[in-house]
């Protein structure tokens, strides 16, 4: 389970695949204003990133992946 909702935080954990994009849209629609926790994210599919860039939720945590931490998290600020 890559997309997990915990109160006002949506956790994206492990390897997020293309299919997770649809789940993320639903989660964001059901929890407007929820923040995204990326601290356990190992990989982020572009399909998921597109949803985050469109929805612009607040972002928490720094992913393990060096590439994501250095170049992708900044894009969502």
């Amino acid at each position, binding site marked *: 389970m890559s997309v997990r909702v915990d109160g006002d935080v949506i956790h994206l954990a492990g390897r997020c695949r*293309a299919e997770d*994009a*649809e789940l*993320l*849209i639903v989660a*964001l*629609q059901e929890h407007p204003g929820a923040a995204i926790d990326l601290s356990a994210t190992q*990989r*982020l*599919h*572009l*399909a998921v*990133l*597109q*949803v985050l*860039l*469109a*929805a612009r939720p607040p972002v928490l945590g720094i992913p393990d*992946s060096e*590439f994501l931490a*250095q*170049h*992708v998290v900044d*894009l969502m600020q």
Partner: protein
Amino acid sequence: MDDLLEQFLIEGRDLIAQAAADLDTLRRDPKDAAAIDSAFRAIHTLKGSVGIFPMGPAERVLHAAEEVLERARKARAMLDAATIAAIVGCLDAIDRWVDDLEGGGALSPDAEAVAAAAIARLPGADPAASEEVAPAPSFWVHALIERERGVLQGATTALTAFRYTPDAECFFRGEDPLAVVAGVPEIVALAVLPIGGSWPTLAEIDPFVCTSIIEGLSAAAIEAVQAAFRMMPDQVAIHPIAPFIDAQPESVGVTGHAAATLRVDAARIDALADGLGELVVAVNAFAPLAEQADAIDRDLAARIRAVQAGIERAASDLHRGVSAVRLVPLAPTLRRLPRMVREIAASLGKQVAFTMSGERLEVDKQVADGLFEPLLHLVRNAVDHGIEAPGDRETAGKSAAGRITLTASRDGDAILLVLADDGAGIDADRIRGVAATRGLIGEEAAAQLSDAAALRLIFTPGFSTAAAVTEVSGRGVGMDAVLTAVDRLRGTIEIESAPGAGTRFLLRLPANALTTRLLIVEIGGDRYGVPLDQIVETVRVDTSALMPVGGGRACVLRGRTVPVLSLAALLGVAERSNAATKLLVTRSGGENVALTVDGFAERVDTLVRPSSGILAGVPGVTGSTLLGDGDVLLVLDLPALAA
């Protein structure tokens, strides 16, 4: 037109001309290191300028040409003739694209192919490699440079920019573009941009369609970045970014140059010249004033004359200054001709060596501007109808390559342009025949024309000797357009042709269009002005020397019979009879014609205003001028009157 483009059209063409001139020097002296340096600088600066406009192919071509020159510079090697020709070919292509840009704003559709061909002709050029080294700098590169300015300013080495536009359906195939980008080495900047400029709302988003473009900068070499995208080369654009993008060392030189010269709107100079013309006329009013004063106080009259002389001197100095400002070298007008000749010759499968001389000669801007069209037409005509096909030339015992020369020289108040070819020449009998067939002239009348007059039939509207209207010359514009354009500049054109040996067109144009030197003549008690540049000579002959010929009169001048017409009769005023006849000889229709006048008066240098109002419709009158005493002088157009 936007300012930037306008500036580029001027400066870009200057740079092309500079490089072309340097290459011409190198053709004659391949060891001239200064010329290689100068050509290199011009092409380098030009490459920077074209980058601002949608001229990707131009930038690639210039980059390739610059490399060749740079190698020659470093190795202190000589450029061989083939290399110089190849670089000239590159400049020709650029010149044409500058024309395209001016005409429609976009390069012709064949630009990519032309660029590839031009680059391929350069020695050591690998078209594929140059494609990678300097691909078209697209809009995205400029946007990226803007966006990542901070990163770029900190960069000390070259960076590689990339733009990856994944296929919209790529998610279905299990691809993850972000994972691909994660494989790019040494990323220093990254951006994920929405296709179309803005992200959809959460409600609109389709999670199965890729709507992103990924752009970034890498510190790795182009090859390494390309390797990361090797699976999807068609979805990726890569462009090298030089370090310190803001630093442009050349700009120092450019600024220094700009301070030394000033570009001024020609209309302002015209206004200045107009005002000066009025001043000259106003000063002329002193003369009758001094005459009136003579009757009252001779001292006062003398002082008035002294003041008049002082103002006249100052005005004429000023006048010379303004005229000089309007003088421009012929070179910018003529510099496009060599390229046109090469193109026309190539399209007709002919070989032509074209040379020009005297292009540094300075003429009034109006003349320089008005000269290009008629010259181009004559040159086109010379290549198309003058120069024969290589095979025919060899059969005739000539070299396979035809020669066309354009010589400009100063001749008193006029400039003389001679366009000569060593082609087939014009057969006067054939011209007579064609003109008669086309119904432009009766057969009998045609037979009576001298060869020189028969050749002038080619200037008749509706005349075209080409059996088939060719792509090159047949554009619905005949040689009559040349005559009209030359007339408008108050010039004359003459043809000399020797069948089999070639043809010469002689254009005589006034060098200074600002004011006109007039000879004042008296006819039937009235005074008229005649432009000096229309007068071949003035002579006095005994009235008895005039012989009746046919319905008119003629006289012998310098061993040639010249028809004599009465200017009084032509103007419809009473004719006086004098013991000695004063003749004004002019050229009309290529022949000398003498016109009788009652007397010659002074010469004046004055501003002639073109006819307007009721005068506009009067044939034989080009305009009018104000004399110092306030009288209006009609200025005659002798060739038109004598025609």
